[in-house]
């Protein structure tokens, strides 16, 4: 149950802290983190394991949407299989 949490938008203080705080609350294990700038926008990518996540997908999306609205950024949670399918043969 690996997934990527991507956070995009204008860089602000505490992005990593807030997103990892949410992961901690929901018992989501963070396995790797990287940050980059894409066309002038800040982008953080977290590889996480959702196996022991304490809420269902709908609730997880509600929580990430709420955090995204609070930070004025865009957060997506997408399963690893999607990237696997699109970018590997």
């Amino acid at each position, binding site marked *: 149950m690996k997934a990527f949490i991507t956070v995009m938008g204008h860089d602000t203080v505490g992005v990593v802290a807030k997103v990892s705080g949410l992961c901690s609350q929901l018992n989501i294990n963070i396995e790797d983190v990287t940050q*980059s700038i894409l066309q002038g926008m800040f982008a953080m990518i977290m590889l996480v394991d959702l196996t022991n996540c304490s809420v269902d997908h709908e609730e997880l999306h509600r929580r990430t949407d709420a955090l995204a609205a609070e930070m004025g950024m865009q957060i997506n949670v*997408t399963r690893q299989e999607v990237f696997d399918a699109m*970018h590997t043969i």
Partner: protein
Amino acid sequence: MSMFNTGDILETIEMFTQDNLDVRTVTMGISLLDCIDPDPKKACENIYNKITTKAAQLVPTVENISAEYGIPIINKRISVTPIAMLLGACPDADPVDFAKTLDAAGKKVGVNFVGGYSALVHKGFSAGDRRLIQSIPRALAETDIVCSSVNIGATKAGLNMDAVKLMGEAVKKASELTADRQCIGAAKLVVFCNAPEDNPFMAGAFHGPGEPDCEIHVGVSGPGAVRAALARLPKDAPIDEVAELVKRTAFKITRVGQLVANLASKALGVPAGIIDLSLAPTPAVGDSVANILEEMGLETCGCCGTTACLALLNDAVKKGGVMASNHVGGLSGAFIPVSEDAGMIHAAETGCLTIEKLEAMTAVCSVGIDMVIIPGDTTPAVISALIADEAAIGMVNSKTTAVRVIPAIGRKAGEVLDFGGLLGYGPIMPVNSHDPSVFINRGGRLPAPMQSLKN
């Protein structure tokens, strides 16, 4: 993260969030052959029970896949055995009762559309076919989510010109009976040549008699993603590079569709049917096939060069998609509906895109004169002749072609119809109104071309 390129990850997210990449439809094909009964009440009861049983979990399962994997999936649909095949067994039935049953069953399971109020008459009429065709306008006026299609020609069979005449009348009547609702009836009716039996896209989806009892088809989309990729290509890049980029993007888009097909098939316990490799536009800005052609270097879709660019696009989408999917089927090509594509609407409004150019475009792409709004005073004979022209292109080129035109009752060229949602809106396009009625009234069967003799 070492296995993943951050650029790939961000590209995917951008395709989903900014370029409108989505899986357009997950369509469950359901055979109704075991619902046939001489008592129409019993037949309708069988149909309702079969659909609501087989598709009971379709919508929640697909919505769960969408939420769990983070893939937007827009429509959940059902296609069924052409209803004319069931109607043949009950000569006294009111065909519209079958349409109402499909409508009720589809609403019960929460799908967007049910396709299959259909007849396959490319070589002639069997019991039930004429009654179904004559009932289509009323069926579409008295239901909400039922879609209808009729196959009037095939490369192997030629064109059933009696059916062509009937369909011109049916299209006009479907518009007339829904004139108070933007003529929506005609927007739910497709007239085909070489109709595929496993098409997941509406309004032309039906579940052919050669298909299994139940299966899952997936229609991918993503014109916006292709357009965005081409926008990043330098304007002096050779056309080979354009084709290559379309292929690579189509591959990625199609792999998402295949993933969804695998997941839905497994979760529902139903075999995966086909992936339809189509670029299906939406009225959303940027999610347009016309904009892709313009990105290739045309000022406006419809100008000289449009047919060549579309031929390239259609071919590259297939080449990219075919390796990304297990079984390809359905319509598989670029769609060029006018009212569902912001770029096509613009091109039609400016007068750059005409019906004659659309007809030429359909020779090199899927599917045909689609979602074109024509003047309300267009005669049934002209509509029939337009159907015959399109069908001839399909028949001779061994490809699917279709006509879905909406006569705007009480309105003239230059005015608009607005269907809302994915069906969009569009200007009324002028049609050549010279009279072909002697040709249409001849009836009979236009012979199959030499291309049909392949054995």
